[in-house]
Structure formats: structure tokens, C-alpha cells
């Protein structure tokens, strides 16, 4: 039986693939390298989760999962790379907001923050935009 967290993560990945920001280059908890030429790419990372027992007579928990969507995209223009990732972020946020329950898998999936950094060690600047979501679900 697949854990509800896995199902939810896979549903998020499917939604992001459907948004067509990065084609099929949407990964789950990826730590291997991606080639710069294949950007943009998205990594869906599930981080710590808090759990509260639903009630004393239940084995189910209300869980609050931190889910980060890390987008990496490049542009030869050092200034415009921020605009590039912002445009992608708009599409990602729309895809995530289209169904905040992900077909009933969660009671809500909400954006809680955004962080932008830039990596300039390579031959072109790479923008890194991380969208922080909190998913509340019962399992």
C-alpha cells in the first residue's frame, strides 16, 4: 500500500508536468545532477512533517507536510533570469491552485513562502526559485 504522502507528492508532480513549465523534467527528491542544457527543471522535495493524532480513538493523524518545489532555469542575461523564473512561478502557482485538495488527497495545499537565489558559477546564470507549500492531510 502506498503512503498517502507518496500519493500526494506524485499528484503534485503530475500537476507540474501538466503545467508544462519543464516538460517531463519534474523530479521527486532528486539529488543527482541535471545538465544545464536540460533546464528548466523542477525538483519536488518533501521535508519534515508534523503529525497530530486525530482523536484518542483513532489511529489516523492530521499531518502537515512541508513540500518545496525547487525550480532551476537559466538565461544568458544576468538580470533577466529573475524574470524568467518569476514567469515560471506564475504557471506553477496556477497549477498548484487549480485543485488545492489534489482530488481529496489533502484538505488543503497552500503556498507559504518563496525564495529566490542565483547561481553564477557556471557559464550562464541559473535562477533558483523555491516555492514552499504546506500540505495538510489525514492518514
Amino acid at each position: 500500500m502506498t503512503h498517502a504522502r507518496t500519493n500526494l507528492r506524485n499528484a503534485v508532480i503530475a500537476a507540474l508536468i501538466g503545467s508544462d513549465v519543464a516538460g517531463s523534467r519534474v523530479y521527486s527528491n532528486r539529488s543527482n545532477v541535471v545538465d544545464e542544457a536540460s533546464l528548466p527543471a523542477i525538483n519536488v522535495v518533501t521535508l519534515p512533517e508534523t503529525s497530530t493524532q486525530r482523536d484518542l480513538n483513532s489511529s489516523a493523524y492530521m499531518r502537515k507536510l512541508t513540500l518545496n518545489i525547487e525550480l532551476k532555469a537559466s538565461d544568458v542575461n544576468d538580470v533577466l533570469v529573475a524574470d524568467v523564473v518569476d514567469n515560471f512561478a506564475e504557471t506553477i502557482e496556477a497549477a498548484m491552485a487549480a485543485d488545492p485538495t489534489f482530488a481529496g488527497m489533502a484538505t488543503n495545499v497552500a503556498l507559504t513562502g518563496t525564495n529566490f537565489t542565483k547561481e553564477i558559477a557556471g557559464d550562464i546564470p541559473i535562477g533558483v526559485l523555491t516555492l514552499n507549500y504546506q500540505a495538510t492531510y489525514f492518514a
Partner: protein
Amino acid sequence: MGFTDLMDSALGACTSVLGEQVSYTPQGGSAVTINGIFDNRFIEIGKGGGMPVMSRRPTLGIRNSDLLALPAIDDQVVVRGTTYKVIETDDGGDGSTLLILARTS
């Protein structure tokens, strides 16, 4: 012949034997063809967390005396058909400069 001249001569030999012809255009100036030692090695960036990216780190080693003025940021270089801009200059103190490059397209 002083030490500076000896170094310049040695650098000229190095860039002509180990280097290749590149087109160098200073900001507001005209293109000149010089010899430079190009390196375009792979690097892994963003290892600190998440998904690292495999990129490249292009550099060009040149002899300063091949140019009319010292290289500067935003000068342009064409190497192997690719246009780069200079994003950093590292003066070797011996008459050479290592140029850190970024692609422009």
C-alpha cells in the same frame, strides 16, 4: 633582457604553442585576433542542497601585451564560434591574465 621581458617572451611561447586563435573585442574597440589558452571544464554547481546542475566554467588565459589595453569586464571574446563576455579578470602579476567568461547566447 629583464625579468618582465623574459616572462612576456615565455608567455608568448606558451600561448602560441598551447593556445588557439580567438577574436578579442574590447568595449568600444575593434576586434583583434590573439592567442589564448581556453579551458571549458565541467563543474557541478548548487551542491549545497537540492538538485545540482552540471555546467561549465569557461576561462581564457592571455598575454596582456597582445592587447592594446588591459582586459576589462564586458569585453567580448569569440572562441570556437561561441561568443563570451568577460565577467571577471584575474591578473596573474606576470603579464598574463586569466579571463573568467560567460556565454552571451
